[in-house]
């Protein structure tokens, strides 16, 4: 196990290095960025443009820029945003709690819905309960996310009004601007975005869980347990569930990076000040330092989570040999 871990770690570092090269090359090959904003303005003289290019270190060839970036990054300095001039990590740090709040609540709600529904609908396969949950799950999977979010807003924060004549549920932001801190207010602001995200992702989790539960229920050891006269409850919880949850571990593990990356659509529709929007805005303006910082951290999390998943898998399921 130790050698395996060591090997995987080395591979991961190498992968990350390759990713950083590809990303840097790719982003540099895309036109635009801070200089094009200046070039667009006829008031900026050739001298101005040269001065600014030097200031942002954009006059070096791409490989040189990459090496400089790599050197600084290895020392923990991701550079300063071209737009705000603040350290990229500071920009990320400002938004990280917001994204983690949204995605964390979403993940918990998702699991709370998906696990019981997935298990029950597998046990009660082809009953009405199963058909209804399946239909709901299909609906969740089939909704165009963006469209669904807009629909929620139109219904709950434009059309429907509360008793005070204000929108029933707030459709934007994390809290009411200018109002004192209130937990209720914060929770209200979470309802619509979490509903949108959880409905869609619970559907996926539920479907996977249902099908892996079905697989497990029909396995020999479960049948054997049943045949030996074990009670159904014991069979389900002791034998079946443990194994059925294994694929779920993969899914959750693979979704973990999104706790950092956020959900662009949701953040965009509900004006949530998270990492997804930071990344998108920075990408549109080709703010290299911020874009690179977000992407590298995200990539590192992807690699880490996949390592984690493999290790947990090996622990949970002795049949899998990692070699």
């Amino acid at each position, binding site marked *: 196990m130790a050698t395996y871990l060591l090997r995987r770690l080395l591979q991961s570092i190498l992968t990350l290095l390759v990713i950083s090269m590809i990303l840097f090359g790719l982003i540099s090959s*895309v*036109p*635009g*960025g*801070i*200089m*094009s*904003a*200046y*070039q*667009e*303005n*006829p*008031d*900026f*003289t*050739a*001298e*101005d443009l040269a*001065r*600014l290019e030097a*200031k942002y270190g954009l006059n070096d060839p791409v490989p040189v820029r990459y090496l400089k970036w790599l050197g600084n990054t290895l020392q923990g300095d991701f550079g*300063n*945003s*071209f*737009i*705000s*001039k603040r350290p990229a990590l500071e*920009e990320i740090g*400002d*938004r990280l709690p*917001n994204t983690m709040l949204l995605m964390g609540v979403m993940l918990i709600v998702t699991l709370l819905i998906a696990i019981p529904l997935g298990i029950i609908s597998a046990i009660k396969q082809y009953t009405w309960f199963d058909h209804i949950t399946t239909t709901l799950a299909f609906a969740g999977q089939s909704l165009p996310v963006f469209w669904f979010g807009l629909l929620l*807003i139109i219904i709950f*924060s*434009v059309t429907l009004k509360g008793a*005070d004549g*204000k*929108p029933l549920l*707030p*459709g*934007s*932001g*994390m809290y*009411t*601007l*200018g*109002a*004192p801190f209130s937990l209720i207010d914060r929770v209200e602001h979470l309802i619509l975005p979490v509903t949108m995200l959880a409905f869609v992702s619970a559907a996926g989790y539920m479907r996977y869980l249902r099908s892996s539960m079905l697989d497990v229920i029909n396995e020999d050891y479960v049948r054997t347990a049943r045949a030996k006269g074990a009670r159904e409850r014991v069979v389900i919880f002791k034998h079946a569930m443990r194994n059925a949850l294994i694929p779920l571990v993969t899914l959750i593990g693979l979704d973990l990076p999104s706790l950092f990356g956020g959900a662009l659509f949701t*953040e*965009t*529709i509900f*004006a949530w*000040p*998270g990492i997804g*929007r*930071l990344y998108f*805005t920075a990408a*549109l303006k*080709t703010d290299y330092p911020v874009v690179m910082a977000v992407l590298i951290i995200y990539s590192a999390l992807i690699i880490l989570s996949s390592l984690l998943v493999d290790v947990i898998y090996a622990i949970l399921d002795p049949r899998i040999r990692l070699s």
Partner: protein
Amino acid sequence: MKQFKTLLALVLVAAFILSACGGGEAAPQAEPDTPAAETTDAPSEQAVDPNAPVTGGTVIVGTPQEPGTLNPLLASATIDDVISAFIIEGLVTVDGEGEYAPVLAEELPTVSEDGLVVTYKLKKDIKFSNGDAFTCADVQFTYEGIVSDLSGASTSGYSDIEKIECPDDFTAEVYFLDVYAPYLRLFSYIIPKGAGDLAALDTWEYNRAPIGTGPWMVAQWEAGDNITLVKNPNYREPGKPYLDSVIVKILPSRETGVQLLGTGEITVLWDLTEADLPTIDQLDGVAWSGATYGYGENELLVFNLGPADGSAPADPSVAPHPSLSDLRVRQAIQYGIDKQLIVDALLGGNVKVGTTVLPIGYWACPQPASEFNVEKANALLDEAGWIVGADGIREKDGVRLSLKISSTTGNQLREQTEQVLVEMMKEIGIELVIDNLPSDVLLAGWDSDGMRKKGRFDILLYTTGGGYDPDSHLFSNYHSARIPSADNEGAGNNFSRYINADVDALIDDAAFNADQDARREAYCQVAEQINKDVPRVFLYERMVISGYREQLQNFRVSPGYADMTLDSQNWWLQP
């Protein structure tokens, strides 16, 4: 502790508003100088003049972008300048009518006989929000900042300054090396000398909490979400601003903003387009204010007179465009466009049809509107040898008259305009194919192989304006020296590759003429000649527009630098 106080203040403000809205007994809390007290929502009991301003309250201003910085020395986007205009003022501004007007100067500056010395008389007794007095030293510091190594500001004009002298605290004499005709555009912002060390410009605290002479100052900036502005205690007009605070809410998109304006979650929405106006008109309790851009922005078509293969020659006649190099084809396209229909159908008739490169302000040069005439268009095309083929599209020497029209993606109004143009061109036998690109790609620079710079297009649809002073715009867009090519390392915006010796000469001469009226005459001749040669078609005049809730009083946008912040010290909320 300071933050706590701010929070407390906000809490009180909010409680105040909420109770006022809810019909509770709100305690009037008028400032001594203000004419009226806050009323509860039982107006009939009050014998107060309904037009008298009410103090207190918070206005939430939605913007679809977040400012990167509020320091004008580092600003790189319009939003940076707009939000900093709540806080920072300059010596001279462009007022609500598009004319230059003094702000921190007593009057517009005077120029010496030889045109080399510009003298500003400064207002006295002005204080910055931190209590420091405003003097000529701040003008000097602003100049030093603009030309410093880390500056992100345009130095055009400032680089011609030799020195700035302060004979006394309230007189600033600016000495130029050469005559700089557009001197009025200078010093549209003032940075106080105590703002920080110019060698560490990027890390100034000032960048996110500027010190200015305007009505507002930053209390808090929550990255990605909102910026809270509170009253500048040292603002020169007593009792103003009327409001307690302005919160700038950063929105993901304009569409979200329209929806929040409708539900009343924001009070003002900055930067609407003409296409949003029909929607705004349908929303209850919402109004809009608009003005033609002070620098005369036109939505326009740019024809490529040169090759469309990316070879980008300095002289297009080496490989002229197969159809657009012919003046008759360009004229025919203009005849084939019903500009008025576009304005009426897509823009609700709210804007003016484009006629000239210089539509507004001191430099205005009105020109007759182009004619919509399909017969003339067809006749010109026939004459030019483009004959209608079997599929209804014209041909000449086996080449179909099929042109690509490119614009920026994600802009609904442009997409609509393009689709309407496709139909209009079909009527005169021209096939128009839409090929849109992300703005970064379309508008990219020479080095990153920008489509526009390299001439890899037939027709472009976008917006550009004449500038508060036409010099830089006309030179950059119509002068033959500004055709982007390998010779000039891709400098300039003359994407049409338009060459006219008269236009070149007029622009060159006017730049060094200190006689403003003579300059205006010269620029007007340029505008006339452009309309004869049709390198571009002006579709309609763009407006700067903001939407607002009707209870907000004294809201209006300026075509100048101030944009929606014009008069923000006079804003008040009708209870």
